[in-house]
């Protein structure tokens, strides 16, 4: 099985998936409308169920809440027929005023399902610490792989390839969330960050399994060309990658996404796609890049068409 032969095709496939999502994010960022939850921006989110004769429209609620002097109000109805009211930071008193105003206006019983209120200073710090967390994670992994593969030639190269593949997985996850935000109103919250960091952790786990095989084969099969050796290692670990990923982790997450509660669905889907991407990238991104690097293929990129495609 020659997996490495078509390496530029795999790179292209990944770019096709990543680019649209990043374009969406770029456009949203330009509009200052990134799908960030109040965990990062600060603000309030009130989820209520309204039980009365006539269910109000989101626009009615919006008008009512905005009239009370609350800023940045966004009202959305959920799958289960409840309402999500997002706004700038409000305190308990304002919340109660909103609830009683709604009770009067719509003549309905109102139950608070959820109320999250995050001060703006906290949001800023969460954002900066999240960036630190992702950065530290990447550095720690780079360091770890370099140490773990120290007896192999170009140990640092393995670490860097794992990081490139990890960035690929992170980009896939961001792309997914961007599309999700466009179609389903997803938001990046603390749970999204958790999923992202998990994807990073497991992505690296996959790479290490493949790299470990390359490490082992380097000692056994010295005479083989590096490209053949890497291809051989990928094929050898393919069964494991497919079985572990598809049959176990993905099954569990798929069950969670399909049957789990609404609160976990987004989390499960992100993990599902992210971990899948982690497996994909260890076979089709990280190892091919090792070969591209070894062959120094970039020297031919701009002279003529790449031979490999």
């Amino acid at each position, binding site marked *: 099985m020659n997996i490495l032969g078509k390496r530029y095709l795999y790179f292209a496939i990944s770019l096709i998936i990543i680019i649209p999502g990043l374009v969406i994010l770029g456009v949203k960022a330009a509009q200052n409308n990134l799908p960030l939850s109040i*965990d990062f921006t600060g603000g309030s989110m009130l*989820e209520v169920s309204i039980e009365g004769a006539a269910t109000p429209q989101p626009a009615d609620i919006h008008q009512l809440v905005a009239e009370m002097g609350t800023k940045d109000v966004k009202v959305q109805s959920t799958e289960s027929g409840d309402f999500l009211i997002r706004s700038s930071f409000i305190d*308990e008193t304002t919340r109660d005023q909103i609830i009683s105003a709604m009770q009067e206006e719509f003549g309905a019983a109102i*139950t*608070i*399902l*959820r*109320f*999250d*209120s*995050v*001060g703006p*200073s*906290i949001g800023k*710090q969460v954002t900066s*610490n999240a960036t630190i*967390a992702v950065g*530290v*994670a990447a550095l*720690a*992994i780079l360091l*770890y792989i370099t140490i773990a593969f120290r007896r192999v030639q170009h140990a640092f190269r393995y670490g860097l390839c794992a990081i490139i593949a990890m960035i690929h997985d992170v980009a896939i996850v961001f792309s997914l969330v961007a599309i999700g935000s466009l179609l389903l109103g997803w938001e990046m919250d*603390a*749970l999204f*960050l*958790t999923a992202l*960091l*998990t994807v*990073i*952790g*497991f992505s*690296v*786990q*996959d790479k*290490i*399994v493949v790299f*470990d095989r390359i490490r*082992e084969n380097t000692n056994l099969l010295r005479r083989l060309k590096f490209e053949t050796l890497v291809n051989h290692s990928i094929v*050898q670990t393919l069964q*494991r990658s497919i*079985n*572990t990923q598809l*049959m*176990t*982790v993905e*099954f*569990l*997450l798929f*069950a*969670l996404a*399909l*049957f*789990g*509660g*609404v*609160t*976990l669905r987004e*989390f*499960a889907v992100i*993990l599902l796609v992210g971990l899948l991407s982690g497996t994909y990238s260890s076979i089709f991104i990280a190892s091919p890049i090792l070969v591209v690097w070894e062959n120094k293929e970039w020297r031919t990129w701009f002279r003529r068409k790449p031979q490999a495609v």
Partner: protein
Amino acid sequence: MTRRPYLMLGLILLLTALAIWVDASQRITITNPFNQKTIVNRNVSTRLGLDLRGGLQVLLEADLPADTPVDAEAISVARTIIENRTNALGVAENMLQVAGDRRIVGEFPGLEDSKAVLAILQKTGLLEFVDMGTSPLDPGTVIQTDYGQTSTQSSVTSTPESATPVITPTEADATSTAEANATPEATATPPAEAPTIYHTVMTGAALDTVNVVHDSTTGSYEISFTLKTDSSELFANYTGNNINKYLAIVLDKEVLSVPIIKNQISDGHGVIEGNFSGDSANALAVQLRYGSLPVPLKIVETRIIGPTLGEDSLRKSLIAGIIGMIIVILFMALYYRLPGLVAIISILFYAIIAFAIFKYFHFTLTLPGIAGFMLSTGAALDANILIFERMKEELRSGRTLLHAVEQGWARAWSSIRDSNIAAIIISIILFWFGSTFGATIVKGFALTLALGVLVSLFVAISVTRTLLALILSWFEIKNFPRWFGI
């Protein structure tokens, strides 16, 4: 290969028995893999996170400019004080933790009306010095005092708002001291229905300075204090009349410490002696100094989760978990045959041990925690799959079964180890991130993931390996290709 498989098996069974005992004592029914009675009864009695049972989460932050460093001790004392106050509210299982260096996260499960808790959190504390006569109560006891009450009949505990000025005890001193001294005999005869109401000699407002003094020759710690001038005389009178009696230090009606009066304190300078360690002396001094909170706190984040949302999520996620596990078990058994069964058994061991650890350390079960557990189950299976794939390769290349098992394990180990260390590194970073902001759901996920991965490593080393060794010694497998799914 393991040299003494039976010894290992014995150890594993012992450990599992221990784990089951821990699980069961928290009312969890668990699978017994040997008599095939599979009773997986997921825990309902475990401590459930707010996302599963509903409740209130509050994040408090020191109300100081962002660049002012906050004393770690002050924030931890503030946490203790708030915990005591909210415990008095009667909310079960609430939890207060210091988050980062300037924040405290409070969780109040099952609570929907946030106002009562918020009011308590923002209230200032009340420190009292209470006459205990000759019969001291243990620290931690909650008592009633006469401070701020008009008559002994009023049943509601006093609030600081209704408090009369501090100087009042001067006139009331003689009469009410007598009353307080008389109470022990009075309560001895009738059934203890009417709680003793103790007399407050003075409040924390009378204290001027409080310091910890370390005597380097004896190695003991003392707390020295001075009183404000207008309270000195009162205290001199009181201590003069009550030598060898107890004077309790009471914070928010809870007894902190009960020193005995040795001498009259006439000049407003006194010391509290006791078997203090450096830490306990400091803690008491801080509480004396700041009867109220040592740092002003403000609420920066509130989260209220309705109970219905949580229940629904929990039920669905558990069903999802069970469905996922069944599919995985079927797959493992069909694809890997005999080793697959070994894997399933070792996964069961894994689950038993991991759950026991979660329960033993009182981890809060959250939705992301469940997802983390499922992911680490995947990691545990991954270890098994790596070994089996390696084994199959060795078998295909014509080695004997015994040799293949041995080699499969040895060669898979380095990738199992290296890949799991990466997952643990990430978990540690996640845990740090979660702790600084009191994001308990993130913390819960990181903890379950890290522990799950550690346990899965342990299970791969011990259980899978031992079981494979045992099976090889029990059976003469002639037609092994079919048994091993090649």
